[in-house]
């Protein structure tokens, strides 16, 4: 490790809409090493690799490749310099063939036209390097399973002769056999002098593969160390160690609660692999784990959005709702505070008043015609209940701040008088003050007999708010925590699916 680093970042800073994603990051990786990057959700890992691979440009700071300062304006500029990224959200084109995708930007050509035979041979060679000889390169990518797509994505990245290869959750959907293939491949690449940046949430993979590890937290580079210098427990602590950002209302003492929702062995596609849970009346049940372990799908399934859900669901005597309409109008009534308030929660150009009543038209109308008096009363009630700060109810909802927009979403669903409230990361991108108000309101609702199923990507919120916490990993509940057992160490440990650290 005495040679100059192949890639070096100094003082890299990046903000999105005023929110710091990276702040003054110094980072270096050396030739012929596999460098692991660790961090919680939102620690800045994705932004880091997006900057290195030219998808976004830093606001400040300098990047050097092989000692030379570089600034990539686009992913193709980075690829031209041998910095190749395999993205978590796949970069394959579903309607093109495997061979087309592998040579997408720079196919072999004859007389200016794509030479399909040469392209096919090239695809076969590259697929053989990732031991996917059985995969027909003439297949359409859309017909492949997720794990096969990831292997194609790796073959595509290899075909670009990388000097620096970035694997972002490259193995998240792979079978055990494919994972072994990738291990072997990384070993060979290392011997050839290729640098690999490896981002994974699977702790055991990181340990098996990486020579060096860097931990990120809250957009900052915390520490870089060689493999084996730190124990699992120490790594987890490096990943967490942050100040408490919000105050939470006191929790009631644990009591026996009659169940309002029982789920047994819920399965859906590849995302849910047998989730079981019980939600009691007046309970706030937290759902934790790393992003993308099936939490969102669980909430969508309970709200009737997904088709083909298997497993037993007892929702106060009825089955799984067949659609959002059935979910919000049956008994007990279910509401979903969706993940993305801008697309699924609100109609941004419409007025605050119109947005507030969209879920509860049946309550403000008389035989299908909206009653202006009831409408006004309902809007007034909603605004007062959540103390939404606004100019006039007829202003477009997009003029509100993020926190007040989220309050509109919550008020809109409270207007349906739901018995079970599903919350999908309701405090994302919201200021601390509004967060506290939302937590206060959640506890008041629970005390009033409502039941809340609450997914948050911020563990501190689960600890502060939830009566019980379920940790999901790979579509299953791997841990159930209650009372004092709900600690950051326990949640992070279960999230990474390693035995509880510390």
């Amino acid at each position: 490790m005495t040679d100059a680093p192949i890639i070096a970042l100094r003082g890299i800073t990046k903000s999105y809409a005023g929110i710091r994603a990276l702040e003054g990051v110094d980072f270096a990786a050396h030739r012929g090493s596999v460098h692991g990057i660790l961090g919680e959700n939102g620690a800045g890992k994705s932004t880091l690799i997006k900057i290195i691979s030219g998808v976004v440009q830093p606001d400040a700071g300098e990047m050097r490749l092989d000692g030379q300062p570089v600034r990539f304006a686009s992913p193709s500029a980075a690829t031209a310099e041998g910095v190749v990224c395999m993205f978590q959200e796949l970069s394959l084109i579903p309607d093109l063939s495997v061979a087309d995708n592998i040579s997408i930007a720079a196919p072999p050509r004859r007389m200016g036209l794509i030479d399909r035979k040469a392209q096919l041979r090239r695809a076969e060679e590259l697929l053989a390097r990732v031991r996917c000889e059985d995969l027909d390169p003439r297949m359409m990518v859309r017909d492949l399973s997720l794990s096969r797509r990831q292997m194609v994505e790796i073959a595509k990245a290899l075909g670009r002769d990388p000097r620096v290869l970035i694997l972002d959750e490259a193995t998240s959907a792979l079978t055990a056999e494919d994972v072994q293939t990738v291990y072997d491949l990384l070993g060979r690449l290392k011997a050839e002098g290729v640098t690999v940046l490896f981002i994974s949430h699977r702790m055991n993979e990181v340990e098996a593969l990486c020579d060096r590890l860097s931990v990120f937290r809250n957009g900052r580079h915390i520490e870089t160390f060689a493999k084996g210098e730190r124990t699992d427990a120490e790594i987890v602590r490096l990943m967490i160690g942050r100040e408490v950002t919000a105050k939470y209302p006191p929790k009631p003492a644990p009591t026996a609660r009659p169940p309002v929702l029982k789920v047994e062995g819920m399965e859906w596609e590849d995302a849910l692999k047998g989730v079981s849970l019980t939600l009691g009346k007046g309970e706030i049940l937290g759902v934790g784990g790393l992003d993308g372990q099936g939490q969102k799908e669980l909430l969508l399934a309970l709200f009737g959005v997904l088709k083909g859900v298997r497993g037993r669901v007892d929702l106060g005597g009825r089955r799984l709702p067949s659609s959002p309409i059935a979910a919000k109008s049956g008994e007990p009534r279910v509401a979903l505070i969706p993940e993305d308030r801008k697309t699924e929660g609100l109609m941004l150009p419409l007025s605050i008043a119109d947005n507030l009543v969209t879920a509860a038209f049946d309550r403000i109308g008389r035989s299908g015609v909206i009653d202006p008096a009831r409408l006004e009363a309902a809007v007034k009630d909603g605004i007062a209940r959540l103390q939404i700060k606004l100019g006039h109810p007829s202003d477009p909802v997009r003029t509100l701040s993020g926190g007040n927009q989220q309050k509109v979403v919550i008020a809109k669903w409270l207007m349906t008088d739901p018995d079970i409230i599903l919350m999908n990361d309701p405090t994302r991108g919201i200021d601390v003050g509004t967060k506290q108000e939302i937590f206060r309101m959640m506890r008041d609702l629970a005390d009033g007999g409502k039941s809340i199923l609450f997914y948050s990507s911020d563990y501190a919120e689960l600890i502060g708010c939830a009566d019980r916490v379920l940790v999901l990993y790979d579509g299953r509940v791997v841990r159930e925590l209650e009372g004092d057992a709900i600690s950051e160490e326990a949640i992070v440990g279960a999230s990474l699916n390693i035995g509880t650290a510390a």
Partner: protein
Amino acid sequence: MMGRLIAQNRAFAGALALFAALFVTYNLLHPRGFSSAVFVQNANEAVAIAFVAMAQTVPVLMRGLDLSVGAVMTLSACVASYLLTGSGLEISMGILAVLATGTAFGLMNGLIVVHGRLQPIIATLATGAIAIGLALILRPQPGGNVDGDLSWAMTNTVWDLADTYGIAGGGEAWWIRPFADIPMPLVLLFGVALLVWLPFKRTVTGRTVYAIGSAEGAAYVSGLPINRAKLAAFTLAGFFSACAGLYLALQTSTGNADTVQAGAYTLNSIAAVVLGGTALAGGIGGAIASIIGALILRVISFYFRILDIEPLLQPLIEGLVLLLAVSAGAWRTFAVKNRLELFR
């Protein structure tokens, strides 16, 4: 091999089968079915809409719509009605000028979409009106002069072409015999498809057009030339529209700034694209498929002549058949497991 080809192009295979069935039945019912005369007449009536459908296909593959294709066709035809006359050299230059007119118009559409950041549908609605406006200035009244020999040769069979210009022994040379009965309009149509569309599909730019419609974000992170592809798509649409206009002028020997016809061609082009199996959501399909779609659309209207159907009922029946054919393509949505994806 064959099995996979069909599986991957199910919509295209379906369209081809539908066309074959409709066309054979039509000829069986026709008193002079399967004759060269009927074939030539049918081909003549189908070529302009087929070219316009090809034009529409390229922006649709990128998940855009070009509402100016019919108008650009009309404009090109009006230009052609001035230029397709005189010596052989003059006519050749005239043809190039007509094609250049439409191509330039398409390029302008592309520039507006790429650099003006306008939605294709609204940008081309405006430029389409401009094209019609220009056509009306050129031809306030229908008229014009198109070389008679050229017009005759291009709207009949290969033999007539050879006969008119005295090539290949006036059409009697042994090597031209097997092709003698093929209608020239089809030669032009498939010639352009083979020489322009198929090579384009095999360039990185062409592939990028498909990639944009399929997953624009993935196309971007894969480092594909997105702006170049958008420019090329609209330019190519302009070129194919000009081909349609050129043919229309040859067929009618006049230029006519017919606003109603231009609008009808634009709307029918969208129908033809969908019938051929190209997805309006982009990424799947192709110009050859749209030719088949256009042919299906035309064959349906041929039926009204031989079956005694009240002319007033024609639009109604055309609409019903179209609705039926297009419904076949909607099966995909039944396989969606996350209903939120239906709205993305």
